[in-house]
């Protein structure tokens, strides 16, 4: 993707169960950019990301997303009994990515030694890294990451920051919902609530 393509969101509103969560949210995000979504519990960070990912219909507003999108939700989405590498290979196949992309993603999150383990044996932090590796391997331009730092130790957080910086340096974009600093360099900030 070249630098002049950008995602445009305008006038976005969200309702859950008839209650307004947020209204009139808008931003632009160009390739190489990063947006950090902040706000208290229940301010609608996850709902905003779900709308951007196409998982939730907005009550109003428009999302124009020219980028291929990778999604990290609250769940790790690893099927019990499957081995880590074959689990990621399945999703890479759906993404049209090469097996080499999976190996690179496993290495990026220090999961290569665990590649042949059944996912049941992974700790919660390792499951989180596996879910991040799935986004990495997808080759998507825009990463939508909902609380990517949950359960990660200091070394993994540093790794995540490095991976996100590399992704942006190669023309990728990142939108992160987070409570604390996640190591993004000079992100645009969007505070909900």
């Amino acid at each position, binding site marked *: 993707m070249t630098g002049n393509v950008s995602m445009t969101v305008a006038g976005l509103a969200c309702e*859950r169960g008839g209650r307004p969560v947020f209204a009139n949210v808008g931003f632009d995000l160009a390739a190489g950019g990063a947006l950090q979504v902040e706000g208290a519990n229940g301010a609608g960070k996850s709902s905003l990301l779900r709308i951007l*990912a196409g998982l939730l219909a907005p009550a109003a507003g428009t999302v124009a997303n020219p980028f291929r*999108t990778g*999604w990290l939700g609250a*769940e790790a989405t690893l099927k019990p*009994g499957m081995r880590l590498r074959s689990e990621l290979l*399945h999703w890479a196949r*759906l*993404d049209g990515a090469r097996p080499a992309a999976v190996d690179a993603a496993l290495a990026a999150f220090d999961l290569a030694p665990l590649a042949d383990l059944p996912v049941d044996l992974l700790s919660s932090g390792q499951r989180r890294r596996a879910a991040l590796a799935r986004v990495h391997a997808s080759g998507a331009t825009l990463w939508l990451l909902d609380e990517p730092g949950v359960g990660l130790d200091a070394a993994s957080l540093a790794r995540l920051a490095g991976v996100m910086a590399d992704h942006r340096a190669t023309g990728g974009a990142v939108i992160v919902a987070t409570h604390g600093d996640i190591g993004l360099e000079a992100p645009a900030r969007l505070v909900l609530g």
Partner: protein
Amino acid sequence: MIWTLVRRDLALLALRPSALLVPVIFFVLVAALFPFAVGPDARLLARIAGGILWVAALLAALLPVETLVAGDRADGTFDQLVARGIALETVAAARLLSHWLGFAVPLLLALPVAGVLLGASPTLLGRAALGLLLGTPGLAALALLAASLTAGLRGGGALAGLIVLPLALPVLIFGAGLLTGEGAGALKLLAASSLVLVAVAPFASAAALRAGMD
């Protein structure tokens, strides 16, 4: 795309052989119970054998309903697929195919065993096999539809049964009609009712799953 999804479903099914075996064992057990319940009158058993096989197949089709889509909804699999721009209709069609392969094929393989327990004649068994081959896609479609409608509800499995059983009546009626050897009419109607269910289920299931996403 759809083959990748079907292959995935079958790979996951292979990890849980019990999911394959339980409906089949249930099917054979129901057939085995009838001689105890109605008595060992071979002529009576042979006469009702076809109907018993159909009801047993219908009940066996209900067993996997609770696990058919609920897991994928809870663990974010559907979210991952939708975020990739894959239509839920495609996902539901793939699930329908893999469910039929995982449920109906073992059932058809177990049919001779169940038939012998009921003293069914080879002719009757042949007709039941043909009927089940045509009817099980419809039953699988109904199971998928009921599973999608009740995913995320507590006690959804029981509710799914109440949804499936009345809707399965056409398949059951024409399937049983085929057993009497009346021939082509029942066969065509059975195929038609099964086809309608198979054609509608992916769209209806996708709509139900979409409505259930939050």
